[in-house]
């Protein structure tokens, strides 16, 4: 009967509203490592100074049963106010920002600038031998841009991880 356990995995973007107090990030990260859950991306920042709340955005992958477990486990942490599965609860937007350093001269340098323009990446630092591009967008767009830069002299990448929010009037 219910013995057939679902094996297919999905990716979930989960928003967690927490008290901004010491140890909260360790609690969340410890929960994931202790129980063997994946973290594909995790971002955290204070979002409400008056109420001392922070928001953690987590992207994780697992079977439906594991994702439901993750949400239930997060919900039972005392400093956690709300857990929202943005992937499940309707359309949402997820963005991340990357800074990408390309060290190149000559033809490669020109090509990197041309591609950056096509991706609407901004040049935020330049020397005669390098660029730092700033690019904001969905994760796969950033991945694609970074792949294109690889043969052109990709030297370093710094990414923020994703921030996500529901579309429309809906709030968590």
């Amino acid at each position: 009967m219910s013995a057939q356990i679902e094996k297919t995995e999905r990716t979930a973007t989960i928003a967690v509203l927490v008290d901004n107090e010491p140890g909260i990030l360790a609690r969340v990260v410890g929960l994931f490592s202790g129980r063997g859950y994946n973290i594909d991306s995790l971002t955290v920042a204070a979002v409400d100074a008056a109420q001392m709340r922070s928001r953690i955005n987590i992207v994780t992958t697992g079977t439906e049963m594991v994702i439901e477990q993750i949400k239930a486990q997060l919900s039972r942490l005392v400093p956690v106010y709300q857990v929202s599965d943005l992937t499940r609860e309707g359309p949402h937007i997820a963005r991340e920002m990357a800074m990408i350093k390309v060290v190149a001269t000559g033809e490669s340098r020109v090509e990197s600038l041309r591609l950056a323009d096509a991706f609407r990446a901004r040049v935020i630092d330049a020397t005669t031998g390098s660029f730092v591009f700033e690019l904001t967008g969905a994760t796969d767009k950033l991945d694609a841009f970074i792949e294109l830069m690889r043969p052109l002299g990709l030297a370093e990448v710094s990414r923020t991880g994703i921030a996500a929010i529901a579309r429309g009037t809906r709030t968590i």
Partner: protein
Amino acid sequence: MSEPKSESGAEILIRALKDQGVEVIFGYPGGAVLPIYDALFNQNAIRHILVRQEGGAVHAAEGYARSTGKVGVVLVTSGPGATNAVTGLVDALMDSIPVICLTGQVPTHLIGNDAFQEADTTGITRPATKHNYLVRRSEDLARVVHEAFHVARTGRPGPVVIDLPKDILIAPAPYTEPSLATQARYNPRTEPDPGQIAKAVALLKSAHRPVIYSGGGVINAGPEASVLLNELVRLTGFPCTSTLMGLGAYPAKDPLFLGMLGMHGTYEANLAMHGCDVLLNIGARFDDRVTGRLNAFCPNAKKIHADIDPSSINKNVPVDVPIVGDAAAVLRALLAAWKADTQKPHTQAIAEWWRQIDIWRGKECLRFTQSMEKGAVIKPQYAIQRLYEISQEMNAKSGKETYITTEVGQHQMWAAQHFHFMKPNRWMTSGGLGTMGYGLPAAMGVQIAHPDALVIDIAGEASILMNIQEMGTLAQYRLPVKVFILNNEYMGMVRQWQELLHGGRYSESYSAALPDFVKLADSFHASGLRATSVDQLDDVIREMLTIDRAVIADIAVDQKENCYPMIPSGAAHNEMILGPEHETAEQSSRTAGVTDAGLALV
């Protein structure tokens, strides 16, 4: 909430504890907590029990909590005091026991400097507790204490650590009344969803082969939950089984009770699980010791699972009707809905189901043979049986209540099988963590809470040595705890697995160089007794129960006895091994047939 008179953090702490109804603290002093000990010295409302090792303090608080339903309180110093407490904290976490553990900490300005006796206590105990706090500001102290008690006892209970830097204990602190400390951020749901209750009742009414499987959650929900469970079982006439943690919630001697289920559960309970078509789980968590191989667990059943902790639902076993709620509230709602529902249960099918269960019962899976010849070796099961019968008989006269704690091993399983619990909160054992050394300090905590009761730690000779120092605490506070050692000179449970799964290679499982337990008792100001053959057993038990101080009874039992029935790791309920009393050729071949996957399981 500042008061005109200025009180130190330590005094504020004591005041908050009093307002939380604390009567007893189990603790051990040290530099970082001296201000608290000073504040304790100046008052009489809270009694401090000085243990002999901090690990003992936590188990004592667990015993206190489990036998009373109150929160157990522990006080230890920084560094080693806190690290010694960790095992007990995980034990309380696994078994859902409400405990507050106050730990000393180096002063705030030294935190992070590797100061003397500094440990990252909140870091170490984060996965060992339900929640923990480091108090960094005096104005947070009272509020944190109140919230900690609320967290420890609300929802699924558990241990909470409050780490207290010494400067916070010394500096003046304001007080906050419990009523003014907001508890808004932790309010788990306790009332079940009526829609889910309706679905559950519809399923229960449709059952032909139902089973009710109850767990420690029913005990945690308070004595009323046990009364309601009794009512539901009687009203439905459904067979009822229980986890190790749930024993006593339903009276063991009742004909509707199938005994404990799981790895060392009864034949009838496990086969009823395997064959049932509707399963109602109340306050149990589908632990692997209960389910056996998951893909063969209750293969034909629709499952209803009621738990106060939503993360326990659909964790190991996907269920058809999840119900989030307190066990008492769920049982109350189920009873009301069952009565209101006009649908008739399948009485005839259920009677047929009972006939099948009675055939399984007829196996008498817990049967053993005790030779009554003079000088015959004592079977461990017989020792427990006599302990049960004689204590019942003597307590019937004296009116005493009996509380049993255990260590971990074969003796623990035999105690669960052969000591019959008729009421909740009378059985204290380390279920989830399986902590050897739990029983003696836990018994100490029980005896503190119930000074006039008969408190027995059913022990193994190996386990008892893990917290034997607490004999000193028994002596100091004149606690008449009885330690009943089933001495098989082996870590019997390890020996049993080695016999069944590792070709009889008894690697490091012999209890060599044991102390003389009679002399050991004597040196700790207790009485020591010994029985080495069956003809001595009753006299030793009677004498033990008559002596009004602590006793160690060293009962030499059959060293080769194994604990059956047994579901080997990785096997299904219907692949249970019965003992030599029931041995057939087919079964002994199964013993050898443990799969590689099963061998890897604990």
